[in-house]
């Protein structure tokens, strides 16, 4: 069973070997470390940039314009907020030149809370990301999706933001269908092949398993669990938490349909709306701050198009509108949606009687 970082690493490897990736770069992305989460270990084209996020995004744009295929990393999305203008510029390149230029690049960055990362390693970026016209935006919730979305991001002719839920990075594939195809079934074997050893790494070379060109289309959601009573729409690390909530609620006779969006833009309205039409109830869950939140957009669209389908007011459950996620466990838990909060909102919405 691979972890999400291993999956990302394998996708990047396939990217550089078969899909023209020329540069995988960012702070501590190259040797010796290969990324603060080990996501870029052993990659042929990985290199360390200066500690300068504006330079990183700028260089990625330039590389893309010059026909290279860059995958740039922002070490934590918390450090991308001084680059919004450049991200906007990348998203506008094709449009503002009336189709003359395009800007195929990938920016990857770890997002979200859940690891006691305190104020500056807990930020979400989904609300910001969905405000970047011209970008495609993805966020996987398991190794297979991470692998397949990264490959789709790499071959896309547009800028693609790949957000990796940091709390899931080191987690192994849990369920069937979450594994990267082609990897050895023994964890230790995979680890021996592609994880850099501790200590001196100068002579180490990875042995890559033979993994396929699995492309998970950008814009396609995944129904994580079928159900009839209520639709829960989420992504990233909250997929697992919502799955747990659904398990708990199944015991109470509430049958949850859980949708893992995977792509935030373009997003799979076909799947979401079909589900809401079936269950007539919906909760949108994410952990970004709740004022001007992407879940609110989804809720607005639900109201626009499905108002008369609804048996209960649709709900958004998101992070608190405060300046940061505090470090103490009590503070972190109170700041972003926890299992209990989710169970309560789903239950109330499922049980709601007009």
């Amino acid at each position: 069973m691979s972890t999400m970082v291993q999956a990302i690493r394998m996708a990047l490897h396939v990217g550089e070997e078969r899909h023209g990736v020329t540069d995988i770069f960012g702070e501590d992305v190259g040797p010796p470390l290969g990324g603060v989460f080990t996501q870029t270990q052993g990659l042929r084209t990985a290199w360390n940039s200066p500690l300068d996020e504006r330079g990183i995004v700028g260089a990625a744009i330039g590389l893309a314009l010059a026909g290279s295929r860059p995958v740039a990393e922002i070490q934590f999305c918390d450090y991308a907020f001084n680059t919004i203008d450049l991200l906007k510029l990348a998203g506008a390149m094709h449009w503002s030149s009336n189709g003359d230029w395009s800007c195929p690049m990938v920016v990857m960055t770890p997002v979200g809370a859940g690891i006691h990362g305190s104020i500056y390693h807990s930020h979400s970026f989904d609300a910001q990301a969905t405000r970047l016209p011209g970008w495609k935006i993805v966020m996987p919730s398991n190794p297979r999706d991470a692998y397949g979305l990264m490959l789709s991001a790499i071959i896309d002719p547009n800028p693609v933001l790949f957000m990796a839920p940091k709390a899931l990075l080191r987690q192994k594939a849990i369920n069937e269908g979450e594994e990267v195809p082609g990897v050895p079934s023994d964890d230790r074997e995979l680890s021996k092949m592609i994880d850099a050893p501790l200590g001196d790494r100068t002579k180490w070379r990875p042995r890559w398993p033979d993994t396929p060109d699995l492309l998970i289309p950008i814009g396609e959601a995944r129904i994580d669990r079928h159900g009839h009573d209520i639709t829960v729409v989420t992504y990233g690390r909250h997929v697992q938490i919502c799955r747990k909530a659904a398990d708990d609620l199944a015991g109470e006779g509430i049958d949850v349909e859980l949708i893992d969006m995977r792509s935030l833009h373009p997003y799979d309205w076909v799947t979401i709306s079909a589900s809401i039409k079936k269950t007539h109830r919906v909760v949108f869950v994410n952990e970004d701050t709740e004022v001007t939140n992407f879940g609110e957009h989804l809720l607005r669209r639900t109201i626009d198009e499905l108002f008369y389908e609804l048996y209960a007011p649709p709900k958004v459950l998101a992070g608190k509108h405060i300046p940061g996620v505090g470090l103490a466990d009590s503070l972190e838990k109170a700041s972003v949606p926890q299992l209990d909060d989710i169970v309560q909102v789903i239950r109330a919405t499922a049980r709601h009687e007009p």
Partner: protein
Amino acid sequence: MTTTISKVRNGAEESLKPDLLLQMHDLMLKARVLEERLIRMQKQGDGFFWIGGPGEEAFGVPLGMLIHKGEGPAYDYLHLHYRGSGTMLALGADPVDALRQMKSTASDPYSGGRNFASHYSARKWNVVPVSSPIEVQYSMAPGTALAQRRHGGSGITIVTGGDAGTAEGDFATCLIWSSRKGHELPMLIVVTNNQYGISTPYDGQHGEKRIADRGAAFGIRTLTIDGNDPETSYRAISQAMDYVRKERKPFLLEAMVSRLYGHSSSSGANYIEGEADGLKLFEDKLIARKLLTRERADLMATTFTEELLEAGKRVREEAPPSPEDIWKHVFAEHSVAGAKKGTRS
């Protein structure tokens, strides 16, 4: 500012061929006439806003002439700011296209009526889309240069911008990324110093005597020149480019230029007396050297003015973009074979 300007070093006095001088003059004059036409269009309501490069022709034209023009990393990349008409004409741009952009027609090849005048874009010549935010081009330029460093050959990246804008962190980013030891980038980093940012004079905003001095700490070769003299510009650019093309290392070139019609239409766009006018000075020189007559120069100006006036009338009849065009080109379409090859999930 009272800094003295270095002479271009070796070969500084070697004179350029008369043909080349006349070609430069022709392009400078056309660039000036074009800008004056754009200013007029805007004042007459045939455009919403004017910004451009009158006063930078003596630098911009030689720059354009010296560019290795083409598409892809084998050729030079240009990250221009919004005063690059002279450079574009020297590259061979059709001046009528600039009128189209001013008039925001659907036929505007640079932006389809989306962007301001002087916001050029030409993929066929590696001219990256000019965008209004000051200095972001200095953060992007190292990217094209990185690709060129890898590609090899003699293609280089050229980035231009104003003096005031060097206060943005992006200018420092450019110096840092281009000079990393062992990873130097083939970049000609240009600052056209007109000693103003809109209304704010250079003095009081800068601790540096010369902006070019900022390169020294990074081991970047630097030079400050009189950018109002096209001969000086030509020689300096050509020497700097030689260095960058061969050494594959950055060069920081500061050109002192004029801002002959003020900042933009927002500040009136009237001819400013008292600023050195590189075109006039050059004409005087060519006339003194008997390479040109006043009559010929005047005739050239009148003829081209007429031509553009007529062109402007035709452009006025060209269609504006249609409302649905806002949705065009939000996303580029897949053209990569891989997209079809892969297994769907």
